[in-house]
């Protein structure tokens, strides 16, 4: 019984030894193969040596529909696909300069009398007629929605089609309120479509709109008639909402237009992979467009005019990688696989040295650091309808002024924005006409003593209500559900506690919180505003009485004097007279203090040494066509920076092999012991 067992055991041991040797050889070969194939390049071989721009998006885009999209991330992609009549000069700032894009000539603005129905009576008002003429040789991108798949010539009717689609209530265009009631007949048209859709019928975009007119003699000319002067229409004609839209695309793709854009911009969509990437490629039908030949002072020295007069776009492809985690995108940037990166809390310490300059590590790699002031404002807002913090009596004003003086904006900027940001003195952001860098708001100085004094004058000495003897409690409605949000709320609570005001934080999810703000169910809140266009009107209208909720005036502030001045300045062109009116409005709003102005954002952007012509624009999102990539340099740097280091892997496997030797010895000892014992037993 024992011998067959022994013989088979010996044979199996011999086989096992051979197998083990083969296994080791195979393992070593596999390891070498795997190591040889190792590379951390996330792109197909050779791609980064081509003129491709690599950018990062932090999440999927909800929509690429130009009539609906309203976020900056979406704008970055959409604006390169859907150009508009006007565009912002890429280099000129302060003031921002607008230039023709699809427009063939400057719009003609005429004042005309218009008849409108107000309170059931027909009245004649001063209106405006704007005449636009498109460049005649524009074409849509090639797409299966067109006969033969070839993009057709763009005509004036395509721009007006965009307006008609915006007027459709089912589209829920977010900027319709800007002009919907100003274009003659638009309100009636929207009401008509609403009725049609209630009856489950298809909307009829051919229904007449008095204020949208085609020229019977010229297919490239169109007119927009407004029931009031509205110079801001020029800015709207630079927003993607007013891009020419092909009815063929809308009819063919319907709701899928959100994922199948058909435009006439420098780029067209080639790939849209959720959670992965968005790829745009050069549009062969793009109009003749050239890099600016002049810029702002200092641009030539900064090398921003090296490509002056070159045909745009300067890259063949733009790839937006969707990377949700800041750590990941930052590491990819450091490896050279992303061309640009934002400076955030994740990388601030690594990027910025103690002297507030680019760190030596980044400088040695030729990385550029650019600072941009955003056209926005953050503020704490009071609900002006609230019996405690609202109202317009001197006591109410003093209470708000006291709270304003207690809030430390600089601490907010230092703690939560890495010191980046401009403490706001008024509503208008830097770079916008009406922003005065020398203006100091008397109630925005952080001064606890003065704040206490004002609080006493308001009837709350030491924060105690002199009528009831109870401590003043303010309810702070917020959406601080994240760690940073809670810390920000805590700073506000502490600031107001310093003057004796007890602040109760009421936290909700963002959309629930938004609902409370919209319904006026709050006392005190924090909010922000990003400009749609660089006109002071787009800021000061936030405090215009008739704009109260559901309009953009979230504080429900209403001061007839301010409103009158707003109506005056709204229709004016920029100039000293307009500035004087804005200054008067500022005085009124600062004294009434419906807001506590916190800051205007500043952003830092990093770009690799091989990326040229980088000059972030606070309003325009169309930068991709101006950027140039030195692809050979990028390829070279990527190879230099990304040599795989095989030594640790080899050492690790050697350690495993040698480390397992004592274990093998134990196995042998056991096996021998077992064999002896079993042999003895059996014998």
């Amino acid at each position, binding site marked *: 019984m024992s011998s067959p067992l022994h013989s088979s055991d010996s044979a199996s041991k011999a086989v096992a030894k051979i197998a083990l040797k083969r296994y080791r050889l195979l393992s070593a070969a596999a390891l070498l193969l795997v190591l040889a194939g190792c590379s951390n390049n996330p792109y197909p071989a050779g791609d980064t040596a081509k003129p491709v721009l690599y950018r990062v998006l932090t999440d999927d885009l909800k929509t690429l529909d130009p009539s609906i999209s309203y976020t900056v991330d979406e704008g970055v992609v959409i604006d390169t696909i859907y150009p508009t009549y006007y565009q912002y000069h890429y280099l000129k700032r302060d003031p921002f300069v607008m230039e023709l894009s699809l427009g063939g000539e400057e719009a003609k603005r005429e004042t005309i009398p218009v008849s409108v129905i107000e309170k059931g009576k027909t009245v004649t008002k001063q209106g405006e007629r704007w005449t636009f003429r498109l460049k005649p040789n524009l074409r849509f991108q090639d797409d299966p929605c067109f006969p033969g798949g070839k993009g057709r010539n763009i005509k004036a009717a395509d721009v007006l089609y965009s307006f008609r689609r915006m007027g459709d209530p089912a589209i829920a265009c977010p900027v319709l309120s800007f002009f919907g009631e100003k274009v003659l007949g638009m309100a009636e048209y929207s009401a008509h479509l609403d009725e049609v859709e209630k009856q489950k019928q298809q909307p009829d975009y051919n229904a007449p709109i008095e204020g949208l007119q085609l020229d019977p003699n010229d297919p490239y000319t169109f007119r927009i008639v407004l029931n009031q002067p509205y110079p801001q229409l020029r800015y709207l004609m630079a927003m993607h909402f007013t891009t020419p839209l092909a009815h063929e695309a809308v009819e063919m793709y319907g709701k899928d237009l*959100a994922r199948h854009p058909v435009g006439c911009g420098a780029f067209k969509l080639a790939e849209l992979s959720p959670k992965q990437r968005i790829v745009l490629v050069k549009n062969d039908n793009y109009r003749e467009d050239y890099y600016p030949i002049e810029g702002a002072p200092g641009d030539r020295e900064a090398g921003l005019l090296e490509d002056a007069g070159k045909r745009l776009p300067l890259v063949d492809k733009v790839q937006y990688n969707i990377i949700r985690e800041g750590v990941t995108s930052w590491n990819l940037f450091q490896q050279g696989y992303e061309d640009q990166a934002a400076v955030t809390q994740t990388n601030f310490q690594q990027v910025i040295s103690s002297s507030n300059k680019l760190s030596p590590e980044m400088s040695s790699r030729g990385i550029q650091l650019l600072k941009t002031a955003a056209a926005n404002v953050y503020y704490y807002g009071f609900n002006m309808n609230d019996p405690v913090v609202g109202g317009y009596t001197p006591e109410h004003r003093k209470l708000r002024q006291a709270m304003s003086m207690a809030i430390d904006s600089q601490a907010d900027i230092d703690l939560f924005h890495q010191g980046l940001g401009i403490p706001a003195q008024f509503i208008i952001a830097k770079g916008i006409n009406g922003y005065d860098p020398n203006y100091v708001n008397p109630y925005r100085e952080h001064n606890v003593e003065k704040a206490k004094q004002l609080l006493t004058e308001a009837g709350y000495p030491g924060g105690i209500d002199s009528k009831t003897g109870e401590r003043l409690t303010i309810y702070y409605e917020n959406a601080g559900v994240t760690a940073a949000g809670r810390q920000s709320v805590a700073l506000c609570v502490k600031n107001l506690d310093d003057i004796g005001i007890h602040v109760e934080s009421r936290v909700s999810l963002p959309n629930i919180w938004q609902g409370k703000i919209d319904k006026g169910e709050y006392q005190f809140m924090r909010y922000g505003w990003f400009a749609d266009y660089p006109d002071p009107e787009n800021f000061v209208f936030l405090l215009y009485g008739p704009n109260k909720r*559901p309009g953009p005036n979230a504080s429900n502030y209403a001061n007839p004097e301010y409103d009158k001045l707003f109506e005056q300045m709204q229709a004016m062109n920029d100039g000293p007279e307009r500035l004087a009116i804005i200054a008067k409005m500022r005085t009124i709003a600062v004294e009434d203090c419906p807001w506590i102005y916190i800051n205007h954002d500043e952003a830092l952007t990093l770009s690799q040494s091989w990326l040229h012509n980088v000059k972030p624009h606070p309003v325009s999102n169309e930068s991709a066509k101006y950027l140039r990539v030195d692809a050979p340099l990028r390829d070279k740097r990527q190879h230099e920076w990304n040599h795989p280091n095989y030594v640790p892997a080899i050492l690790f496997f050697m350690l495993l092999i040698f480390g397992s030797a004592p274990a093998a010895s134990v196995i042998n000892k056991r096996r021998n012991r077992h064999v002896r014992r079993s042999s003895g037993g059996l014998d």
Partner: protein
Amino acid sequence: MLFYLLRRLLYSIPILIGVSLLTFVLFYMTSSPEQMARKNLSAKNPSPKQITTWIVKHGYDKPRSEQFKKHMTELFLFRFGKSDVNGEDIRERLIKGAGPSGMLGLAAFALSLVTTVTFALIAAYYRGTYVDGFLTFLSVFLMSVVYMVYIIAGQFILGKILKYAPLAGYTSGTSAWKFLLLPVIVAVISGLGGSMRLYRTFLLEEMGQDYVRTARAKGVGERAVLFSHVLKNAAIPIITSVVLGIPLIFLGSLLLESFFGIPGLGGLTVDAITNQDFAIVRAMVFIGTILYIIGAMLTDICYALVDPRVRFE
């Protein structure tokens, strides 16, 4: 067996309806159509008119009972509809995402199983020796590290310092392995400690049984004892813990996919809850329930396959 499976399938219908009803009730307890509209409309401050239009367009104006009936009918027909957020076809999204999630999940699952069982066998075989001591220390150490640390350290060491694999991204086809290498290694190492300890315990329990002593007494080699007898008998508890992880293979891993840029289904449910995309939430809950039911049935089938004492009744 067929009868048993059919009976189990019939039992799953009330489970599916119950889970969907619970989801439906919970969703409406924490959210309202108005809030959903606000969340999903792109305007800074949507007008009441726009909110009403959105609610009507998405069918949330209908009575709750009617909504639930419609949802259940559609779900049982596997017609998931369109996302409330971006109008994307949910079935298409699921098909697109299931591939990368499945690739990552299957690779991580298979490799984890082989690695943990191997280490558990080694630890059990060398019980009481320095090898066992070292593996115990390693297990406790691996269990003590937070999951995020594995991800960040894995990216940092293997991707950034050693530069063996891309930090993030994905391509379908044969190049996918390059992008899956890092997350799979992270998934395997992060799960190693706990599973290794658990399986070692199962194996040791079996090794102390009478039949093992009998086998040894009859002269069966240690390797044969371990693989032919101990491992087979310890398979039942191992299968129980392993099969329950199968649904996660297809539902994806939120953190791994998010950090490594894998376009799977990992973040889909969480994103849908955050964005109040009820259409996706109900579809994912339904699919998740089905996968768990299938997982439980597979467990039963596996019991019968590995243990002749188990019979379907």
